[in-house]
């Protein structure tokens, strides 16, 4: 197993290299980070020229990539524009943990991500928990009560939810749970932010503000996951070994949880393994609608500003996470299913 993981990690290196090259090339043309740097006016030509030089954007793409990857502290750069490379570079490069600095916010990208990541993890972690618990419960219940009214209702509703764009659910839930109750003088959910400034960032406040975004996020995924769980559970329940377990006089509940769930959760593990790493990137649309200060908003705002170091860092971070989680999924899979052995 150790060797397998090591080999997979090794294989991931060229993959991540390819990804970083593709992304870096894309980054060259997602907009002009200097265009809006001067506030509301297009940037002055002299400043544009100077900033390009100071930020290293005047270098050939290949050189920029090298600086991004391994840093430029081994060479000198020209800061004052006299054509002489006089100053030692300061960047360490991604390989040494330096994700560069935001062009717009002028801070290390790592700091920016560090500020937003906890918020995203909180939102998305809660969401993933809600979805998992909900989907497993719903999936098992519908599978066990196959063809009951409940099962039909869940199937129908999940089909509809599954077909909804998340912004539509978000808008609807805002309208029905915040705007309308407020008009009617009923208690209503907050729609924006993580907490009321007056109340401060307290745990109840944050939970209260998390309700609508988590709801909007969860409903769609819940629909997909629970259908998946249901069919996976149905398949497992029709297996011979479940019949065996029942024939042994084991309790229904015990059969369900000790015998069926572990098998049924195998395909779900793959799904989660795909889902989890993308959570790091946050929920772009949801965070935007509900003003949640997370990674998704950081990503979208950074794309809008063509703040390429931030965009690049987030994408690479998510990519690394996806790759790592793929390996992790395999490991967990092997743990859950003893039939699987890697070398």
């Amino acid at each position, binding site marked *: 197993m150790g060797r397998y993981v090591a080999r997979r990690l090794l294989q991931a290196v060229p993959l991540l290299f390819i990804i970083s090259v593709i992304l870096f090339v894309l980054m060259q043309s997602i907009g002009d980070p200097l265009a809006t740097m001067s506030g509301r006016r297009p940037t002055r030509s002299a400043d544009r020229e100077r900033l390009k030089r100071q930020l290293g954007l005047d270098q050939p793409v290949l050189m920029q990539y090298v600086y991004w990857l391994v840093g430029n502290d081994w060479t000198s750069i020209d800061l004052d524009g006299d054509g002489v490379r006089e100053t030692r570079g300061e960047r360490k490069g991604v390989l040494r943990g330096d994700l560069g600095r935001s062009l717009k916010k002028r801070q290390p990208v790592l700091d920016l991500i560090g500020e937003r990541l906890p918020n995203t993890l909180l939102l998305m972690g809660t969401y993933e928990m809600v979805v998992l618990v909900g989907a497993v419960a719903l999936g098992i219940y519908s599978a066990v009560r196959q063809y009951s009214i409940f099962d039909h209702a869940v199937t129908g509703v999940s089909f509809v939810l599954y077909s909804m764009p998340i912004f539509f659910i978000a808008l609807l839930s805002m309208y029905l749970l915040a705007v309308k109750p407020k008009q009617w003088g009923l208690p209503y959910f907050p729609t924006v932010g993580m907490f009321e400034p007056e109340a401060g960032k307290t745990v109840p406040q944050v939970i209260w503000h998390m309700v609508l975004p988590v709801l909007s996020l969860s409903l769609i995924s819940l629909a997909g996951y629970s259908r998946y769980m249901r069919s996976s559970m149905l398949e497992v329940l029709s297996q011979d070994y479940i019949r065996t377990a029942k024939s042994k006089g084991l309790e229904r509940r015990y059969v369900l949880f000790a015998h069926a769930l572990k098998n049924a959760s195998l395909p779900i593990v793959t799904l989660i393994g795909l889902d989890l790493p993308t959570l790091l990137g946050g929920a772009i649309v949801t965070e935007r609608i509900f003003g949640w200060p997370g990674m998704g908003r950081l990503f979208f705002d950074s794309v809008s500003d063509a703040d390429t170091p931030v965009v690049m860092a987030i994408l690479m971070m998510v990519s690394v996470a996806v790759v790592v989680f793929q390996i992790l999924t395999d490991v967990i899979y092997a743990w*859950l299913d003893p039939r699987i052995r890697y070398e």
Partner: protein
Amino acid sequence: MERPLLLDVADLQTRFHTPEGTVYAVNGISYRLHEGETLAMVGESGCGKSVSMMSILGLIPIPPGEIVSGTARYRDRDLLRMSEEELEQVRGKEIAMIFQDPMTSLNPVLTVGKQITEMLQKHMGMKPAEAADRAVQLLEWVGIPDARRRLADYPHQFSGGMRQRVMIAMQLACTPSILIADEPTTALDVTIQAQIMDLVIRLREEVGMAMIWITHNLGVVAGLAERVMVMYAGFIVEEANVDDLFQDPRHPYTIALLAALPRVDRRRDRRLKSIPGAPPSLLVKPRGCPFAPRCEFVIARCQSEMPPLELIAPRHKIACWVDVLRGGSR
């Protein structure tokens, strides 16, 4: 000498409601099993043998399955009227069942030890350590070497025959009074088949339990069972002591079956091809004798009316309008 009655099944009817239509799987079968007795149930694949057994143990998924009628009295209690909780006390402890395919019948993600001990813990109230010791004994009993180490193994680490031994050990863990063996050797290699049969026969003697052996292979029945029931399309068409059945078959279907079996100890044929035609669709509500279309003795009445299972000789029942010995209607 009549041994005490253990299981009395009467008029069992099981159906499945599928999108394709209703499947008439078991159509009112009745039989009795006495203590220590071995009963064989013979029939082609899909004639309702397994369903009839699983029906009485409540292993039919409902829906789509439905037990339309019948009783199954086990020691004066009707299994079909029991609550799920009561049934759980019977299954595995009183009536155990081993299945056809040992590859799929053991849970692949749980260790063998776990699958045996969970049962002992549930039915015998054993502590985990105690149960583990008992499991080792059981595995040794069914002939698995190095049993203690193998408790931690998963089913896929066993060969097919060994797996079936595990299955048997597991199902006999609580010394049940009835063992239902649902074609336990079908999926195994021929050499292994014999070993398993010998094992089961040995264990039957040691435990002194009654047994219902389900098979589509008349050949295996001879050395094993005392009585034989022949099933066709959800009906029992003939029931007799094993010697009577082989020497004096009275139902046209049984006769055809035996005719397709040149010698008892010979290797089985997979399909009984020599009976013309195919078994009827179970999707059609049975009207008349289901074997009629393939029967060489068919008479008009067969098409319209299902013959009841009637005693025609001591301990010999058939469901047929025709007396095949004399020809013509009985």
